[in-house]
């Protein structure tokens, strides 16, 4: 579903601040795979996700989604194939609009927007059905402003919005990091359920080693802009958080300054 070859990007090229954020990344993700991406701060996780989403254009290499080269596609064009959730619960929704309006915006992501009414009975029915899956009662609050929702409710709504239509790829950018532990747990569980139900190919960036192992089918670790670990199947199933940290240390052969962060 996603094929990345020799992907690289350098910030501030040719200056004192030159930073090879990502280099020589090769990765092939099969349809329906759920990949979790870990790494310390500055490892290139967000850069990698931004490249997939189209917010950054790579310096080298190419990206193909579903067999189509999208390397130079702008964000809005890629959005017809992929959806994205942000860390900031305010980033993925329009606060001043109602729940149903937000869903109508997202429902049109994979199809052209015309001059028919945005909120049709079909959109309303789909919204009610999908929101009911969350079991948060949002399906009864279709006309409430999103500004009235808590952070966890907003991310749950954003999750529904991101999985509407013919979404092929879902990108999750530490989407539970800004939530309190209970809300994070809720959103994480919902993510697992919904992704499984619709079989969407997913790439989730996380700070938490526990999340990385609990969710998904494959885990990759980035460090200094390169993939230093790629585990799946048996090897991943038997892996503990402690082992993962140990492995990280061995592979990297250097100090990890933010153990606390990784173990969280």
């Amino acid at each position: 579903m996603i094929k990345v070859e020799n992907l690289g990007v350098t910030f501030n090229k040719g200056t004192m601040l030159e930073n090879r954020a990502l280099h020589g990344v090769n990765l092939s993700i099969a349809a329906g795979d759920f990949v979790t991406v870990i790494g310390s701060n500055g490892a290139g996780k967000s850069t990698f996700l931004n490249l997939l989403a189209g917010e950054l254009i790579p310096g080298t290499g190419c990206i193909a989604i579903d067999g189509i080269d999208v390397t130079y596609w702008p964000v809005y064009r890629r959005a017809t194939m992929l959806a994205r959730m942000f860390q900031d619960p305010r980033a993925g929704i329009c606060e001043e609009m109602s729940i149903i309006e937000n869903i109508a915006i997202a429902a049109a992501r994979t199809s052209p927007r015309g001059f028919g009414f945005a909120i049709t009975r079909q959109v309303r029915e789909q919204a009610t059905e999908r929101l009911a899956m969350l079991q948060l009662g949002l399906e009864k609050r279709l006309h409430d402003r999103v500004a009235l929702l808590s952070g966890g409710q907003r991310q749950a709504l954003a999750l529904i919005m991101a999985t509407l239509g013919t979404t092929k790829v879902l990108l999750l950018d530490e989407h539970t990091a800004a939530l309190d532990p209970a809300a994070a747990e809720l959103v994480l569980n919902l993510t697992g359920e919904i992704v499984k139900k619709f079989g969407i190919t997913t790439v989730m960036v996380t700070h938490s080693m526990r999340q990385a192992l609990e969710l998904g089918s494959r885990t990759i670790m980035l460090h200094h802009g390169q993939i230093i670990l790629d585990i799946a199947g048996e090897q991943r199933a038997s892996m503990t958080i402690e082992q993962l940290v140990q492995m990280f240390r061995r592979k990297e052969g250097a100090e990890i300054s933010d153990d606390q962060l990784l173990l969280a």
Partner: protein
Amino acid sequence: MSLYAFIGALETGLAFALVALGAYLTFRVLDFPDLTVEGSFPLGAAVCAKLMVSGVDPWTATLVASLVGCVAGFATAFLNLKLRILHILAGILTAIALYSINLRIMDRPNIGLINMPTVYTPFENLGIPSLYAPVVLLTIIVVIAKILIDLFLATGFGLAMRAVGANARMARANGIRDGRMIVVGLAIANGITALSGALFAQMLGAADVSMGIGVIVVALAGVIGGTALMPSRLIPMLTLACILGSILYRLALALALSTNAIGLTASDVNVVTAVLVAIALWLPVRNAAFSRQPK
């Protein structure tokens, strides 16, 4: 206030309600403070007047003027999107260029339209007293424009435009071409502003190159004053608030000027407007501070 002053305020308020609807689209929906209207309002007047004195019928002249107004919107969108010029500055650049262009169009600073058939003439011939004819026609046009804007904003395309103003990054992530929305929004807003300029010139009996000065503040007085008086989340209510705000502003101004006790004269209009707009801008801030609602 005399009947003449009242009707005068009403028809001016209605003409500027169109500019207010355009300003609602740019300032509120797109979050793009567009100052192009300072140029596109007299542009509409200039194009319309020039065509009318050249023998074109007033309806066609008005329509062409509106379309030329759309082009002014395109120009500002081009400056902002392609040349990456700050939105507010892009509008100022277009407006200042339009001053010269309007002089070129008219060949002189103003064109008189007195005693020429205008879009209001058929209404006078229907038996409506000539004093009321502009009010009747302008009301019809304003109501049609309002309904069209309400319907437009309820479509998939219109909702996408609202998303661009509310959260551009989210809009892009949902497949919306934010640049295209700005182009379309500015074109509509300046088209409707030029329409207002054309109708205003025919009402006034002249097009003048300096008639655009302060138009944006007057339009904002309608948008901000109206929505401060009638806060709502529903778009049809907000567009109605813009229209009523525009009319109320003109009536309040006429009242203030007709009351000799305050000692205001016509030359004080601008400072009164500025004070009114400032108060209307401050009202929601004050209310928010009192209710302490976290944003």
